[in-house]
């Protein structure tokens, strides 16, 4: 249920709108989970509007035939497959420079795909088998890191064939224990984690944009990779292509659910910054880092996600553990005043931020805190799934 459903009390000069019923978001933005796993992608260009409406030139992957949603996007289309699937991607390079594709941490990739002026040689068909279950970043690896920084990156997800973890048989005893305990032990009342197609998995793809370099690419100026690495001064800090308020209460990025509905978060960093994402209201469990499922499953509130890192978290969505009062009393009875307080918006449902603590990332265009790398975790009801008051 959306917070907008609850916005009823007016603020001077603004119209109060009540929007209808519950909306079930699609699992991911662009999904290649069609009947066949053959699809088309191309290299293209577009102007991407940042949160302040500044238009920034990008090189982008475009989702073409075979995807649920088509067209260029930042990040590129999410590709979801099952371990062992046979996948064919037909690439076309529509840009005036050579480009390519690689899944980081694997040997899966194309060679250099010639530029559009070399047509019909500007095409490449890549066939591969989906690698072991996990969260993968795909990039254009050429002129590293120039091409990926200018926008050529996306998420590739490999799902397990079975089991109750995101890793199938390729898990560790401690990760397996954690997933066995969700919903079946006193510390995790509620549901177990529900694998796809349930909406209990999210992708947070971090990226940074320094428009100065993008403008040079737009002008056709060659960008030296070493110059980019040394001088990169990003002005926008993206989470799955969005920032600030536009990233905070949206399907597929925000964590939305009742107490006791654990969520898997797949985090990827396509940029050059070292992020330090911090979650309020719950410590999370670090399941996997750079495709290594963890033996020591840390239960922490802040973690480092460096350039090209991929990290999986399990957010247990337990009731925020430091709310005073009897744990057996539902929150709707324990905190009735807070849940009915209106501070521009009703305080129900309970909303908390996840934000990067390297706080420069909380800015956009040099300020405008907190319009940067942030989203929200929203508790909509108690563990018995009775919604908080509306």
């Amino acid at each position: 249920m959306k917070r907008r459903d609850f916005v009823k009390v007016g603020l001077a000069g603004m119209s109060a709108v009540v929007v209808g019923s519950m909306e079930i978001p699609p699992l991911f933005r662009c999904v290649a989970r069609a009947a066949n796993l053959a699809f088309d992608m191309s290299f293209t260009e577009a102007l991407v509007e940042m949160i302040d409406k500044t238009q920034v030139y990008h090189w982008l992957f475009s989702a073409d035939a075979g995807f649920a949603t088509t067209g260029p996007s930042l990040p590129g289309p999410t590709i979801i497959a099952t371990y062992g699937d046979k996948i064919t991607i037909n690439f076309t390079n529509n840009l005036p420079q050579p480009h390519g594709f690689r899944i980081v941490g694997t040997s899966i990739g194309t060679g250099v795909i010639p530029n559009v002026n070399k047509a019909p040689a500007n095409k490449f068909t890549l066939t591969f088998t989906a690698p072991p279950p996990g969260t993968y970043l795909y990039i254009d690896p050429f002129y590293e890191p120039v091409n990926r920084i200018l926008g050529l990156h996306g998420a590739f997800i490999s799902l397990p064939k079975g089991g109750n973890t995101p890793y199938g048989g390729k898990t560790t005893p401690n990760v397996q224990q954690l997933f066995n305990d969700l919903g079946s032990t006193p510390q995790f009342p509620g549901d177990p984690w529900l694998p796809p197609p349930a909406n209990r998995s999210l992708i947070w793809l971090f990226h940074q944009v320094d428009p100065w370099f993008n403008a040079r690419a737009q002008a056709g100026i060659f960008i030296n990779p070493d110059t980019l690495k040394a001088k990169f001064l990003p002005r926008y800090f993206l989470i799955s292509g969005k920032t600030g308020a536009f990233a905070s209460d949206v399907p597929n990025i925000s964590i939305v659910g009742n107490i006791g509905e654990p969520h898997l978060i797949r985090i990827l960093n396509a940029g050059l910054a070292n992020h330090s994402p911090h979650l309020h209201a719950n410590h999370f469990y670090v399941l996997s880092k750079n495709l290594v499922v963890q033996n020591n499953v840390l239960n922490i509130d802040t973690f480092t996600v460096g350039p090209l890192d991929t990290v999986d978290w399990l957010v247990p969505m337990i009731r925020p553990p430091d709310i005073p009062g009897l744990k057996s009393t539902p929150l709707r009875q324990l905190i009735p005043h807070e849940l009915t307080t209106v501070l521009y918006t009703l305080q129900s449902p309970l909303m908390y931020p996840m934000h990067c603590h390297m706080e420069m990332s909380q800015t956009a265009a040099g300020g405008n805190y907190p319009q940067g790398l942030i989203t929200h975790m929203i508790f909509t009801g108690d563990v018995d799934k009775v919604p908080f008051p509306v």
Partner: protein
Amino acid sequence: MAITVIPRGDVPLGQEHEFFKFVCPPTFGGGPVDAQPATIKFARKLDVMADLPLPAGVKTYNGGNSLRLWLIADPNDSSSNGATFPAKTIRTKKGDVVWVDTGFSFNTHTIHWHGIEPTPMNDGVGHTSFEVSGNFTYQFATNTAGTYIYHCHKNTVLHFIMGLYGLFVVDPPQGPKFAAANAPGAFGFDPVNFSVPIDVEAAWVPGEFDSIWNDLGHNAFMQKCDQNDPAGAGTFTQNGFLNRFRPDIVHITGVVSVPGNPITDPRVSVAAKTNQNILVRLVHAGYTVQEYTLGLDATVIGEDGHPLGVPPFDKYSFPFVIPANTPFRLTSARRYDLLLNSPNAGVFPFQVKFMDWINGTVYQTAQTTVTVV
């Protein structure tokens, strides 16, 4: 052919209030809301301006000998306005219900209890609740023994680094001379209650300043409030530089480092005897990648306020050892509880490299020591 434009989109219908609150949080006071009887109470006041004198050899960007800070004070402490940097440590016990009466000298602020997990109105984040004007009593429980921080969460990029933070320690039921731990090899380990006795406790809280930022005002480079169009292009400031952090002054736990000189101030350097249990609370309070090297083996017994391997929540994890002289890194707001114990006398160095969060440039290196006799 015209180039494709991928539009930002407009504020979703019905989310106007939420977007406006995001940029311009409401103010509120009073509390506690939905009160539960407190078992311990504190008071804090924001913000007290102070000028931190810089040691010889350290200057601000424009040659100044002191650095403007914003501090959190204890109004019940008459010494030096009660303001220290970092702020006075708040110390509670596992299971406490805590009230913190929070007052504000001017402007609005919040306090976020980083790692402690209460309701949104007690979480101290303006855009998911409110900013405090006047007074507000925050209420929360401290149900897990470990190391936390508290800090202002308004225009946080600036308010945090200006000094509005302090350490928050939750002791295990055995009291402040113990740490929650599952450390079977440690001296005095209690396998029933999962604790170890602590002989010497220390806090290393390394942080940085970009002294150009210290001349800025509270609301520097914040977005304009426009109720009718909270995301209008014209509401965004364009001349800010809070995305550019180039630290020129570094400190450990408030003691400014002079390049080349190890810090000997007893607030930072550690003195212990052989075979004593030393607990160091290592807290990253800056915006660089900090790389640490310690001349002693360190067992990480807790992370971010949660003890490793202590049932039931942490039975999926276990303490781990960072061998002596092995560099390790943290990023902003992460905390390690390090258990040290040396059978040998000696002076063991601790070093922090402060590295740019993007290109890895080493801005400065600070040092101190653990002396074991």
